[in-house]
């Protein structure tokens, strides 16, 4: 598992560096804790720029929109954010956390 993720981790770091070098505002979002069933492992990352472009994944789909929005705020105000996405079994399908898990995501600006 861990090593399948290695190439992906490199791609995120490379993208963050490339966007920063191009003068874009950049934030990194990292899964720091999961409860229950979660499609993405702790340590999974998403890189976001100030226009909302992103690469990577923290949930396998449906919370990415919310994370990108918060990440853009972090790029603007420089403040890190700790986001909680908890879902009940009933809601789980709707946000893509198929088995009812929850995820905590740390968002920080690259500065």
């Amino acid at each position, binding site marked *: 598992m*861990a090593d399948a993720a*290695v190439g992906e981790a490199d791609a995120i*770091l*490379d993208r963050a560096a490339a966007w*920063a070098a191009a003068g874009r505002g950049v934030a990194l979002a990292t899964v*720091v804790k999961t409860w229950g069933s979660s499609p993405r492992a*702790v340590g999974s990352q998403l890189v976001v720029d100030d226009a909302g472009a992103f690469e990577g994944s923290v949930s396998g789909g449906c919370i990415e929109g919310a994370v990108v929005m918060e990440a853009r705020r972090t790029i603007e105000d420089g403040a890190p954010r700790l986001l909680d996405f908890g879902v009940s079994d009933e809601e789980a399908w709707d946000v893509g956390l198929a088995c009812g898990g929850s995820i905590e995501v740390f968002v920080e*600006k690259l500065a």
Partner: protein
Amino acid sequence: MKAETLARLRAARGERRPVARVAALDGSVDAVVEDGEGPLPEPVLEVVRAALKQNRSHDFEHEGGRWFVQVFNPPLRLIVVGAVHISQPLIGMASGLGYDVTLVDPRGAFATAQRFPDVAICDEWPDDALEALGVDGRTAVVTLTHDPKLDDPALHVALRSEAFYVGALGSRRTHAKRVERLVEAGFDEAAIGRIRAPIGLDLGGRAPAEIALAIAAEMTEALYR
């Protein structure tokens, strides 16, 4: 994350060096740990060293605050010396376990793409091959040729390296002779003691795939214990 942190992580990744990034989740701490050292209190460094060993990123508490350690270990690598019958199932199992596998065998008739279609093959002499690949702490070395001319040079390089697993196929008697040769070559007891021989956990199986499984299981144990 500081730009400097990102630069150091990327530099370490490019050179296959294990590295960890540590952050306090209120944003007050952003540090890099390399070689088990970094600008952090000792209790935090201990958490980070264990995380690197376990290859597991996780959150933790320190002095009332929440922190996160993210592990960036290089990919696991397995170097198999000897394109023999056990190599085939071992390569498949190791690939499934996430290893980048290289098969080393200078005997052209053994290491053919027909027999081993899904693996990087190196036909240099084993010591040259291992030197060129660069054996590090995320690398396992397994010698399977039964031929001292091929196995011993690979073991010489492996025992001078930080390989987390060094295994050599052969019976106890074969290994006793191997030990004599290694002593003559100047290796001490501690170095020679790193060799797993007879190779593999004692699962009782004798079929090639069963021996491969015993080796893969022993590699996994060595990685985490």
